[in-house]
């Protein structure tokens, strides 16, 4: 209040004010316009820097993402994995708990999966091993997430730093075990685990090796949506996130909600680790999470924490990624160039939110008093 008053009335020729909620179609119109505008800007940059035809580049990107049925499967698999991690961070974010440690939580889930597969792969039948793998990976992810939650709940430590640091610990633990279990010894790589017996591998449905992953994530999406929107827990998460004072006032145990929600968040990260190791790669490296723990933050925010919208936002990001890889090979462009294009597009999408929430009025009259 004081800030605006300080500037008034000399410089106040432009006034920004919050607008009443726009109807849904109008806000989507603004978003679509933003994407189109970003493509125009990208085209200009493409011509300036590479001299290539921007339309050819866009066409190549589309082909790279959905050009063949194998690519479509790979795209869907990528969406499923990113979406899974995004679903995991969303309950925490709704609670205003900035969990940026999904990367580590996914890795710990994946490491738990891999260790079961390596240690028990030849010692127990698959119908026992699979449930064990599932339980252990979920528990591992949940433990990794609940540690910062407990510290936050009891001593009010900063969860952002805490979860971030836990990532580096997780990465180093994975490095340690990849060395211990490396095949051949000393190579620093585990390689495909149980390649002949396929023990501990998630089964593929028919010939579609990724289908199970995709179905599991689809089910989780709906489950998380319902949990956040219709369950008592989800309601408590929203109240704690919006106003801790109100939560206390109506008798919500805030500590309990923080810990419970982070257990869920971590457990879902554990599932992501499971799907990546047991359902996709059948091995683990320190790059298994592949930065999804961070990209997921963007997916979740862009979708305003709505799991159904997150399908769209994760699709957008993975589509751009796949397309970008294609143009860097076809046009011989540097990898970074695709990052530039992606950055511009996301910048426009995020920027469009400003125009959805605010109106700008220009005024020439001088001496208008700020309240």
């Amino acid at each position, binding site marked *: 209040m004081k800030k605006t008053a300080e500037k008034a009335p000399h410089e106040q020729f432009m006034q920004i004010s919050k607008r009443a909620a726009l109807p849904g179609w109008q806000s989507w119109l603004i978003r679509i316009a933003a994407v189109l505008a970003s493509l125009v800007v990208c085209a200009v940059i493409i011509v300036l820097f590479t001299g290539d035809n921007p339309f050819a580049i866009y066409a190549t990107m589309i082909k790279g993402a959905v050009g063949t049925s194998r690519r479509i499967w790979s795209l869907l698999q990528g969406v499923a994995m990113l979406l899974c991690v995004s679903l995991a961070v969303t309950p925490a974010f709704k609670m205003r708990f900035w969990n940026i440690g999904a990367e580590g939580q996914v890795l710990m889930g994946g490491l738990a999966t891999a260790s079961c597969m390596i240690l028990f792969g030849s010692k127990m039948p698959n119908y026992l091993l699979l449930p064990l793998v599932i339980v252990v990976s979920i528990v591992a992810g949940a433990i990794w997430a609940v540690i910062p939650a407990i510290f936050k709940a009891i001593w009010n430590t900063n969860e952002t730093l805490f979860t971030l640091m836990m990532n580096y610990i997780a990465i180093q633990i994975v490095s340690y075990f990849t060395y211990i279990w490396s095949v051949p010894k000393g190579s620093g790589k585990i390689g495909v685990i149980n390649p002949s017996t396929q023990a501990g591998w998630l089964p593929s449905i028919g010939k579609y090796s990724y289908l199970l992953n995709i179905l599991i994530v689809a089910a989780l999406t709906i489950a998380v949506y319902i949990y956040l929107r219709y369950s*008592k827990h989800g309601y408590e998460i929203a109240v704690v996130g919006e106003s801790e004072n109100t939560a*206390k*006032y109506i008798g919500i145990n805030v500590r309990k909600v923080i810990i419970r929600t982070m257990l869920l968040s971590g457990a879902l990260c554990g599932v992501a680790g499971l799907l990546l190791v047991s359902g996709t790669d059948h091995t683990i490296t320190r790059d298994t999470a592949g930065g999804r723990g961070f990209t997921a933050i963007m997916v979740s925010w862009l979708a305003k924490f709505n799991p159904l919208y997150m399908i769209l936002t994760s699709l957008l990001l993975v589509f751009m990624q796949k397309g970008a890889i294609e143009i860097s090979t076809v046009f011989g462009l540097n990898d970074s160039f695709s990052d530039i294009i992606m950055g511009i597009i996301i910048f426009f999408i995020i920027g469009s939110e400003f125009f959805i929430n605010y109106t700008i009025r220009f005024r020439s009259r001088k001496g208008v008093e700020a309240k």
Partner: protein
Amino acid sequence: MNNTPAIELRHITKRFGQIVANKNVSLTVYNHEILSILGENGSGKTTLMNMISGIYHPDEGEILIEGKPASIHSPKDAYRYKIGMIHQHFKLVDVFSATENIVLGITEGKYDLKAATKVIRETCDKYGFEIDLTKKIYQMSVSEKQTVEIVKTLYRGADILILDEPTAVLTPQEIRKLFAVLRRMRDDGKAIIIITHKLNEVLEISDRVSVLRKGEYIGTINTSEANESILTEMMVGQKISLNIERTDPKNVEKRLVLTNVSVNSIDGRAILKNVNFTAYSGEILGIAGISGSGQKELLESIAGLQQLKSGSIIYYNPKTGAEEDLRDKTPLQIKNLGVRLSFVPEDRLGMGLVGSMSIIDNMMLRSYREGKSVFVRRKEPHDLADRIIEDLQVVTPDAQTPVRKLSGGNVQKVLVGREIAASPTVLMVAYPVRGLDINSSYLIYNLLTQQKENGVAVVFVGEDLDVLTELCDRILVISGGRITGIVDGRNTTKEEIGLLMTKAHHASDGQGKEGHHEENS
């Protein structure tokens, strides 16, 4: 005394929307003098001072400085006129040292901390400020922070100093030190304005007193000719009849008994001191006091939101006759004991409601736990929301609208409606008509009276003495965390309550205060 006033305000009027915060206020301040601006909460003291310090701009009237018309559009302008204001909430950067904060924002000249330190040190010595200039703000006590704020304004060359409620957060010793410094600055020729509502301090420190009431200027008198009852009368004014219907209490039973309740703030200051009272069913118990005298903590203690240092809060259950001590219980435990306690807190959107949630979801706050299902039921809350919208004439597009988008009065109707719908046996309301128009206010008064007739023990924290004396059966007056009196609402006068509200704390409990201060330091 110089004949040209340091500041002269002529016919100042300031409106915020429909509310008139200051109406035709004129007053003068001279160099070599301390002027107190006295008035109740909401009488427009701070708004008036904010216009002098450039935060607001008057709608009508003019400000003269040293006899010349001045146009003050920003705090920077104010500094050009050598005006400095020390706000109630300090505006300091926590991780910076005192010196760094003092020079912050000065763009002229070189950034030379050493030279600045020397000048600051001289200022401190001149007026007798005791302060470690290298200390960081976050390590400082409230009193030290205030000193930094005062030195900051002096460093910027202020000759006219405005202090907004400077003693509100200080201990008696610190107040004494502050007053000594203020006197030295006055003797040096500065013009000093103090905003306050504590009569004893007005009489002790100031040379003249100007009184505001409900935004209007009442008058100025020399402190030497004033006493507490003259000032109180000027402050509260004539009784205005509001015609609030007051029925006689029926079925009066003990409902809530507080015994020796004491509460300390996190930093160890005593906020409630040995509070004793009983709330009865079928009556409205008013709580009067300057804001920040401990009302908030009192209600929160009962609601299970405040840690008690000592004492007990006994609830007498009308159904079972059981006695329950609510001390050290969480709100949920209190609810599970069968205590039907409703609470309309002062901070409506920050505590009573969730601003971004719809009216329906806000209804659910109280009831969402009901039932064994893991899912919430929105049907009953939806019905309740519709009923409240209709009964209390809430102006809203629909029940799905986030409460943040409603006007203040409608927000309050939603909150009060929900709390009453829980059919409480104890209903606590804090400033329920603050910011509401006349019609909504009367609606709330009627609702409270209705609850009283239904046998609810109503506890009403208010600020308008006219309302308190017409609505309440008994009025408890709190001052500095201590109960200074419980009066009969039908036979009391505003002057009596006003005096109790501003009753000096040191006179009655000098000993206790001293001991308590030791703990702090």
